[in-house]
């Protein structure tokens, strides 16, 4: 092989090598885009909700209500007959089967929705009102265009008759799409059109607060000790080995710790944000200590020596000078650690946060779900509507994580001082 050919070959190898590198980077970036695209295209539907306009005649005599009823009196009244009658007025039906089909295009909470409407708008008593009732999951999906209409009837959950009603309602402009506030305010439900992440949002919030309160002070104090005061001896070495190892222990092991010690030995309440918060605090602690120590280490020794030179004690030099300068770095490390904790699922499953909870939790000791666990729970459901809801939950979760990480980056860039 001549010299020129050899050189050409070497340059080709060079180009190939560079190409491999570039391809890998592009592949990795494509994975991110693809993942985000799949989640967003599946989840955006969940932010809207389909409603059907229904005429309801609030005749007080038929309802056996007094003329000026209080809220409690309305609450205690049976609205079932009125609701069914109003729903059946939507379309002409023959026979029990068709009636059932018609009622099934509404979400099963229609009676409560009508009742709540009249409690909020008492002026409509003895009048006829047009109420927007939530449509059932199947109609909702049909309206969003996710439902395969062309399938033969036996393989569809929607009957031909329901399709007929749907088309008529669309023609009469009685089907609306509104913003889905249920997604943010409701708790979990077996019906996808009523299910929301309100409960798990609160659960996640309480969990993160507990984690923050427990892990942040302990992590800062521990890193101050290790970075500033710890003598070089076996105990210090042992602590450092422990921290480094704990940072790499799989999260599920912390779940077993929570289950065995917190629930098993100390009898803490199951399925609560309190236990989840403590478990996650133990998990995040080493992950916060490591960046905290790094930012303390980044403060130059001249600061400490300057303080000592004018007569401050060691503790004073640390608390008055070193720690305030390291605060931005420690804060951003803490926020990133908390963002990781927020997305953690496996330990929460082990401490029983997978319970089906409809009510919104009002304190950290109420049973609740959390956002990532809600993703897991809904992903196990078969209904079409839950796929959409799961993706929407992921979108909400990712929004929080991105905000937290962006805030951490902002803190670091804005407030951290460069010393060199």
């Amino acid at each position, binding site marked *: 092989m001549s010299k020129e050919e050899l050189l050409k070959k070497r340059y080709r190898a060079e180009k190939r*090598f560079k190409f491999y*590198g570039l391809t890998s980077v592009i592949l990795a970036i494509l994975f991110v885009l693809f993942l985000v695209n799949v989640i967003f295209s599946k989840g955006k539907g969940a932010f809207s909700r389909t409603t059907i306009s229904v005429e309801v005649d609030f005749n007080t005599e038929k309802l056996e209500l007094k003329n000026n009823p209080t809220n409690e009196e309305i609450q205690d009244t049976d609205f079932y007959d009125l609701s069914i009658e109003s729903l059946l007025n939507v379309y002409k039906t023959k026979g029990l089967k068709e009636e059932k089909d018609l009622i099934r295009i509404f979400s099963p909470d229609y009676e409560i929705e009508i009742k709540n409407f009249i409690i909020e708008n008492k002026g409509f008593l003895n009048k006829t009102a047009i109420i927007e009732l939530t449509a059932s999951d199947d109609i909702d999906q049909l309206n969003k265009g996710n439902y395969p209409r062309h399938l033969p009837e036996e393989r569809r959950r929607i009957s031909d008759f329901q399709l007929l009603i749907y088309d008529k309602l669309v023609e009469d402009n009685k089907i609306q799409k509104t913003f889905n506030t249920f997604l943010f305010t409701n708790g979990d439900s077996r019906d996808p059109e009523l299910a929301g992440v309100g409960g798990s949002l609160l659960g996640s919030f309480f969990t993160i607060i507990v984690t923050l309160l427990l892990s942040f002070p302990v992590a800062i104090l521990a890193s101050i*000790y290790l970075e500033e005061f710890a003598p070089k001896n076996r105990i210090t070495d042992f602590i450092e080995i*422990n921290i480094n190892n704990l940072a*790499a222990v*799989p999260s599920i092991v912390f779940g077993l710790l929570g289950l065995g010690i917190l629930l098993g030995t100390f*009898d803490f309440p199951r399925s609560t944000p309190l236990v989840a918060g403590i478990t996650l605090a133990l998990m995040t602690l080493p992950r916060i200590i490591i960046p905290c120590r790094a930012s303390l280490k980044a403060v130059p020794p001249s600061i400490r020596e300057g303080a000592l030179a004018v007569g401050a004690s060691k503790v004073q030099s640390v608390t008055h000078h070193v720690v305030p300068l390291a605060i931005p770095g420690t804060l951003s490390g803490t926020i990133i650690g908390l963002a990781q904790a927020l997305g953690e699922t*496996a330990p929460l499953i*082990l401490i029983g946060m997978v319970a089906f909870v409809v009510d919104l939790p009002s304190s950290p000791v109420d049973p609740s779900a959390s956002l990532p666990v809600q993703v897991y729970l809904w992903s196990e459901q078969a209904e079409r509507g839950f796929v959409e809801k799961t993706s929407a939950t992921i979108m909400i979760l990712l929004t929080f994580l991105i905000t937290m990480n962006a805030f951490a980056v902002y803190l670091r860039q804005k407030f951290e001082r460069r010393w060199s």
Partner: protein
Amino acid sequence: MNLAILLLIVLFSTSCFFFGRKKIINITAANKIRMNALPDYYGYYLALWCAIPAVLILAFWTVFEPTIIKAFIINNITSSNLKEFNSDELNLIYQQIKALYLGNFTGTLTEEIRRGAENYKSFLSIAEGSKIVILISIVIVTTLYSYKKLINNNKAREDVEKIFKAVLFTCSLVAILTTIGIIFSLLFESIKFFTTINIFDFLFGTSWSPQRAFVRDASTITPEEYNELKDAFGSVPLFAGTAFIAFIAMIVAVPIGLFSGIYLAEYASKKVRKYSKPIIEILAGIPTVVYGFFAALTVGPFFREFGERFGLEVSSESALAAGLVMGVMIIPYVSSLSDDVINAVPQSLRDGSYAVGATKSETIKKVVIPAALPGIVGSVLLAVSRAIGETMIVVMAAGLAARLTINPLESTTTITTQIVMILIGDQEFDSPKTQSAFALGLTLFFATLILNYIALRFVKKYREKYE
């Protein structure tokens, strides 16, 4: 209640701070003397003495109160009854008593439970009362004691700093306590498990079906039953499945991660590096449950359809789908670690290689990578340990069937999946099935511990080489 007490203590101790400071200022002004420490330190001294003992006692009390009350209640039941209960029944009765007290009792109400609930209530009120009395007296005693010492104390600053350092030290001990807690909780249940099931049957058995051990008290197993049971807890299929999925993940993650690390460190312009590095690191920040959902919803079905076109039978929960997605998740760990490691290789090595006429890729292949190898090996080992401990992706996408297979298109199961499947929902304690999850956790803990230890050793050695 506890929160209110805590708030009161904090309030009182804050007022102690101001009181102590004021007092010292007054004394120095009246006697025309100069104290050695700043007035603030006298305030801190009083405040800390007031708060710390009380808060410590409150914390211990809160943690141990339920256990002690439970012991009392159970003692009451056993001493007032002729019937013998085993521990499971006692636990159940205790739970019912608690439920009755909290007002969410369901089931048949017996005389025992009703009396128990009354006892429970009285115990609680006794505990509450004595807690308050003890706390108040502790606060008074410690505050008075420190107040007396305050007036002729010249070393307030030293004392406060000593307490401060002690608090710092205690906080750093939490890491050790956590490790001890993990080992204790895992060992405790695992030892119970290994008294029923031989440890060798667990480690080397090849069939895993813990549902066979459903609701069975570990203490009453006959030898015949044991023969049946020992085949239920052979964890070799789980180890094999875990290793297999981790292997697939590494096949994806190592080349892509390593090459993108090399590209970003050696070739990329500053601008490309600035934007592409954070994007790749997004992959590390996405919660694993999202990857699991993605694997189960998109990747799994895609492989099944793709395989069907070629006449292959692909399970919709396959090792391939889980491993592939897990590999994508691990890419940033490999890439950013190897990026760091390659950046740490001294420039002089590269310059020397260029000087003898090597091209850039030759320099990388023959000089930079061999120099960075220990660090790269370390980062790959860390990635392996993450793949082994990863839970949600495999729970949602890898399947539950425990079988020994090397066909990536079939479903396999892993250690973490089985832990979750055993412990999800309500567990019956003291059954070998529940305990086996802890034994699996112990195995997992030690496996990752060893991997991390080796990896950190590699990285440390590498760092020392060039520092």
